[in-house]
């Protein structure tokens, strides 16, 4: 597959670099795991294959032979002969240019191609971690990049399959804690009663929010391990929801944690957009994910 238009920042991502967290290595992987999984499924890839995560459209590519491709993300569509909505498997002819388009609400788009990206894993993953240049392609993709693909015999019968797009405009479900006891009850209540605003400084490390002061009380915390979805509250009280490139440990208290199934809802919020958290307890959250 050849990159024709690279977007603002397109990187190779998979489910993440798990198994190295005790070396301080962030999991990386797709910022929106639900969209990644859907793209891979629709393109007939394995769940542990890699796709391309794109920030800043348009993005365009060609494949040397016939492939089934899928595009997911928020408000995305494919332009070829005509326009095809996202979240649909599409048969692409050899050499045909595929343009990925979005709207002002699009933040992360995912392109998967049948056969998968045939790249070697680095520390068990094909994901790109730009901060310390980890991954088989440890940089954003550029015009002219040629990515090898695995074998695919996908035909027309594989096209036209659809997966429902998540409700990206909706609220994100979150569990209170683990450090909720370090916050006044009124502050914890505020987490689930406030419409926060997404700040433009947000990236794959985390989504920064304004809208309420969530300052903790009491002593400083000893650094502890972190998972994606943690709503961390630094001094100053403005929360950050941590995403795929989060640090493996941190010393700021975590007032709530977004459930795994809704990480994409947080990641896909556009700067200036509102974000609400819906309080859930983990057992039902697990069932619905």
């Amino acid at each position: 597959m050849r990159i024709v238009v690279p977007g603002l920042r397109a990187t190779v991502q998979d489910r993440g670099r798990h198994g190295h967290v005790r070396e301080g290595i962030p999991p990386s992987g797709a910022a929106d795991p639900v969209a990644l999984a859907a793209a891979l499924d629709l393109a007939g890839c394995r769940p542990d294959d890699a796709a391309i995560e794109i920030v800043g459209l348009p993005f365009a590519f060609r494949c040397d032979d016939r492939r089934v491709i899928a595009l997911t993300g928020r408000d995305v569509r494919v332009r070829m002969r005509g326009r095809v909505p996202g979240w649909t498997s599409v048969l692409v002819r050899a050499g045909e240019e595929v343009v990925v388009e979005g709207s002002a609400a699009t933040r992360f788009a995912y392109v998967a191609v049948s056969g998968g990206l045939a790249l070697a894993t680095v520390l068990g993953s094909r994901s790109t971690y730009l901060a310390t240049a980890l991954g088989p392609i440890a940089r954003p993709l550029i015009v002219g990049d040629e990515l090898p693909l695995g074998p695919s015999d996908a035909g027309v019968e594989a096209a036209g399959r659809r997966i429902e797009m998540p409700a990206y405009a909706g609220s994100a479900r979150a569990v209170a804690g683990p450090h909720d006891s370090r916050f006044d009850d009124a502050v914890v209540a505020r987490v689930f009663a406030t419409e926060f605003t997404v700040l433009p400084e947000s990236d794959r490390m985390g989504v920064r929010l304004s809208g309420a002061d969530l300052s903790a009380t009491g002593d400083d915390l000893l650094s502890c391990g972190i998972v994606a979805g943690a709503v961390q509250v630094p001094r100053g009280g403005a929360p950050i929801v941590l995403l795929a490139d989060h640090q493996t440990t941190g010393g700021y208290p975590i007032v709530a944690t977004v459930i795994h199934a809704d990480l994409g809802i947080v990641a896909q919020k556009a700067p200036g957009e509102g974000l609400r958290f819906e309080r859930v307890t983990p057992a039902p959250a697990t069932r619905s994910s």
Partner: protein
Amino acid sequence: MTVRLFGDRAFLIELEQRIDPAIVDSARAIADAWERRGLGEAIPAYASVVVQFDPARTPWTEASAAASDLAARPPTATSKAAGRLIDVPTVYDGPDLADTAERSGLSTDELVALHSGSEYEAFFLGFMPGLAYCGTLDPRIDAPRLHSPRARVPGGSVAVVTGQTIVYPADSPGGWRLIGHTELKVFDPTREPAALIRAGDRLRFVPR
């Protein structure tokens, strides 16, 4: 020990909240035990362990019971004999050396002698790839975090804050006090394992 909810696929097990090598060892032993059960990854730190699981493989109730069980009957910490001794050749030329010595009431030579005169245990790795939190730093070295963190600390910087010392594996922002630097590459993604220092290793800073 307390088990706290951490989203829908992890728990936080909290030990007594202070920096103490014995507590660090217990946290590591709990993390090892969780991973031995094959439930998922665990992240030990000073006085806590995050234990993760995949709800598609392990139902929440089962993972919750396993976490509570580990907290109620923690495994005994393994012997420290497993750790290796790593020499870190260090040039003591950091921009915060003089200030840190002065606020500690020491000459720079005395501070260097104190820092290089003891062995440190690598408690855990975190913050960025290959960064090992090591201690315990001599309490005579008074090293609170810098008021405003530096936007860029060069990789290889040897740094201290109260009770602890680290080597920055790569350029990064940072609020620790820089007292020297080393050419030793503590993180190299082309190496296996990429991180030079493992939790439980011992470090010795050797003045150059």
